[in-house]
């Protein structure tokens, strides 16, 4: 396996994602966790770009990195208090979580690497926005208008619900 630029980029992205993900769940300060999450989301977007799914990457950046993270930061600032970083976990539970996770991780990796997937081939080529738009709006076979509409209703419901819940009584 020769080292290509692609591979280098991938390795960088993979390391970036892994390190930031681990930092996001281990850091004591919640605001830093949110920041590391943002970096992970960036890395994920990078992966999408690398897969030639530019639209998906753009959406990832827009919605996740741009929208959700800002939401997080705001809510953290709204709810943060002195006790937040002082949370202490007793060692037993910590060990239980760690062991369970590591075991499961090992098992999953083992299965993933052992599994015989369909013959895979990477096809370069950008997915054009026109194709995406047509598929999204098409009601025929391989058309996604129904989930699209359902999602839009869901989002509406979430807006209403969010307002209702967070509204001052």
């Amino acid at each position, binding site marked *: *396996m020769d080292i290509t630029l*692609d591979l280098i980029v991938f390795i960088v992205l*993979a390391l970036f*994602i*892994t390190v930031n*993900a681990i930092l*996001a*769940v281990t850091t004591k300060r919640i605001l830093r*966790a949110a920041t590391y999450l943002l970096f992970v989301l960036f890395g*994920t977007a990078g*992966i999408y770009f690398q*897969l*030639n*799914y530019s639209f*998906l990457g753009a*959406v*990832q950046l827009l*919605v*996740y990195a741009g929208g*959700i993270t800002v*939401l*997080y930061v705001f*809510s*953290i600032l709204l*709810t943060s208090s002195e*006790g*937040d970083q002082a*949370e202490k*976990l007793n060692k037993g539970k*910590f060990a*239980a*979580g*760690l062991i369970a*996770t590591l075991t499961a*991780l090992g098992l*999953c*990796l083992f299965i*993933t*690497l052992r599994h015989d*997937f*369909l013959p*895979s*081939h*990477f*096809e370069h080529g950008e*997915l054009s926005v026109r*194709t*995406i738009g047509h598929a*999204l709006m098409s009601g025929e076979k*391989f058309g996604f208008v129904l989930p*699209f509409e359902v*999602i839009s209703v*869901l*989002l509406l419901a*979430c*807006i209403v*619900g*969010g307002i209702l*819940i*967070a509204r001052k009584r």
Partner: protein
Amino acid sequence: MIQMEFYLVVSTIMMFVGIYGFLTRRNLLAMLISVELILNSVDINFAVFNRFLFPGELEGFFFSLFAIGISAAETAVAIAIIINIYRNMKNIQVKNLRDMKW
């Protein structure tokens, strides 16, 4: 040429890091962040499977797309709830949420 398994390894690690965070953090927001990690890893998997195994189709792609949308909605609602809890209890530590058990 990057093997598909490489991506899968990255997403698996990310997923279990998320699970680990979900199990060990006691702050509701931190737990929510962990959930985001899990969701992201799954999104990656969908995109990867679509690109490598079924290049002509769009299901995986759209699944990722919708998942992003739904996770945005879920986060919004969850944060609304958390803020509400904070308003009632001045705290968002899980161990203090036992009032709702009974």
